């Protein structure tokens, strides 16, 4: 479709990435409403809605704090900050990708009845995810105040880290959702594989405890870099170097481009499968 005034749908024609992008921009209001709906249903109806979403990471934090700082006698001061600063970023990635997959299935009936850009549901999952990430950061900052961990000016750089994490997560979500329309069991496989990915990411342990011969595996994991972008400013009080930012941005953009291409290639064949 070239514009709203003339729309041609031709058999066998792929979805052009630029057209989809233009379509997304024309539906900015819908994006706003989708995110609004997500957050309203999650938070507005009950105070505990927010409480429950934080309960899980807090419980995990407690467990890992006991296990790692107690049993393993690991010498990490303020382990709770160390863990949570990485976990909020990990949780953003894991939860957003899962929500994006569920969202496309959930909104399938909608897509059969109204004409909207199909990537909008994935995009709204990522935007909602970033809002949730910002909210959990607030909780983390409160915890840091309570346990008397230092709050440093490097925190100001976090929005940049969040945007880069958002770009990467959007790319991965696009590819995953498109594939899951065709093969529903990929969702189960992905959910089963997520914990493995979690332990491959230095969130609960420092990368230094990984044996030398396995370290490349952890370092190859893109989430290792993304988590560092969030943990460095919070826990270490350091601003990651420009080079760190640039390389993270580069591979995130590659993920976005790849995800976008996969999505646009598969989207015209969604009909009859949603």
């Amino acid at each position, binding site marked *: *479709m070239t514009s*709203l*005034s*003339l*729309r*041609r*749908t*031709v*058999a066998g*024609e792929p979805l052009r990435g630029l057209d989809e992008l233009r379509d997304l921009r*024309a*539906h900015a*209001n*819908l994006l*706003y*409403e*989708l995110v*609004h*709906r997500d957050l*309203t*249903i999650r938070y507005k*109806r009950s105070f505990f809605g927010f409480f429950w979403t934080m309960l899980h990471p807090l419980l995990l934090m407690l467990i890992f704090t006991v296990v790692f700082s107690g049993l393993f006698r690991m010498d990490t001061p303020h382990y709770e900050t160390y863990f949570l600063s990485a976990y909020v970023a990990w949780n953003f990635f894991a939860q957003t990708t899962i929500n994006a997959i569920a969202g496309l299935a959930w909104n399938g*009936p*909608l*897509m*059969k*009845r*109204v*004409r*909207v850009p199909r990537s909008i549901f994935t995009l709204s999952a990522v935007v909602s995810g970033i809002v949730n990430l910002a909210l959990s950061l607030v909780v983390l900052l409160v915890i840091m105040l309570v346990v008397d961990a230092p709050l440093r000016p490097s925190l100001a750089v976090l929005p940049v880290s969040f945007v880069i994490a958002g770009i990467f997560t959007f790319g991965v979500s696009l590819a995953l959702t498109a594939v899951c329309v*065709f*093969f*529903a*069991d*990929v969702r189960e*496989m992905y959910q089963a594989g997520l914990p493995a990915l979690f332990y491959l990411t230095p969130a609960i342990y420092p990368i230094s405890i990984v044996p030398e011969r396995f370290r490349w595996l952890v370092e190859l994991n893109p989430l290792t870099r993304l988590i560092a972008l969030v943990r460095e400013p919070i826990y270490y009080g350091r601003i990651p170097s420009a080079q760190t930012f640039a390389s993270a941005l580069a591979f995130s953009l590659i993920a976005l481009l790849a995800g976008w291409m996969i999505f646009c290639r598969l989207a*015209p064949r969604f*009909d*009859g*499968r949603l």
Partner: protein
Amino acid sequence: MNAIELQGVSVRYRRETIRSLKELVVRAASRREVPYFYSLRGVTLAVRSGESVGIIGANGAGKSTLLRVAAGIVTPTEGVAIGRGNVVPLLELGTGFESELSGRENIQFNGALLGRSRAWMRSQRDAIIAFSGLEPFIDAPLRTYSTGMVARLAFSIATAVDAGTILIDEILAVGDAAFRARCEERIRSFVRDGRTIVLVSHETEEIVKLCQRTVWLSHGEIIDDGPSAEVVAKYERQRGAPAAR
């Protein structure tokens, strides 16, 4: 000028869709042909702007698929579909309603689904609420509404559109007699305003009243296309049924 043009449009679905990697492997091993069926087959149709066209046919004749192709929701397997101007589908009332949100919030959300801007929705909101007659309940969550109330809200939102072309799929079958009469009146006002209407209905009486021209679909193909009274008469004769259901 044509508001909608379908050129040799076919829509084909697999009868059994492969839904998982597991099935794909099993299917590849058994080498069985996957059967297809055609929801539309070689349909060529032009709707002039300002025209009101009815679509009739038995269940499964492809009526809804035709509207979906015209709206650009479904990509045809063969052929080309063209829509000029703002084409808005009103396919199923209540699409996208969220039971936890209030009636007012649902108006905003539904408007966005139909491609309306925030400002436009805000300017129309009072008129929508007034038409629905649900003023006292508008801030209560939708789950507290009765089915009839939901249908009234949905119709009020759906028809508060500024689109040049409106595709309507059997949404007149809802609500009580009084509300239906108002719906009919609204569609008639669309026709008077010179908007393009494509109306799918099982109620042939309604089609004759509201549409100048009628297209008869059967098994995905156009059987007849002409003045509503003539096409409907032929259709009724073939069905061997009286005019009223």
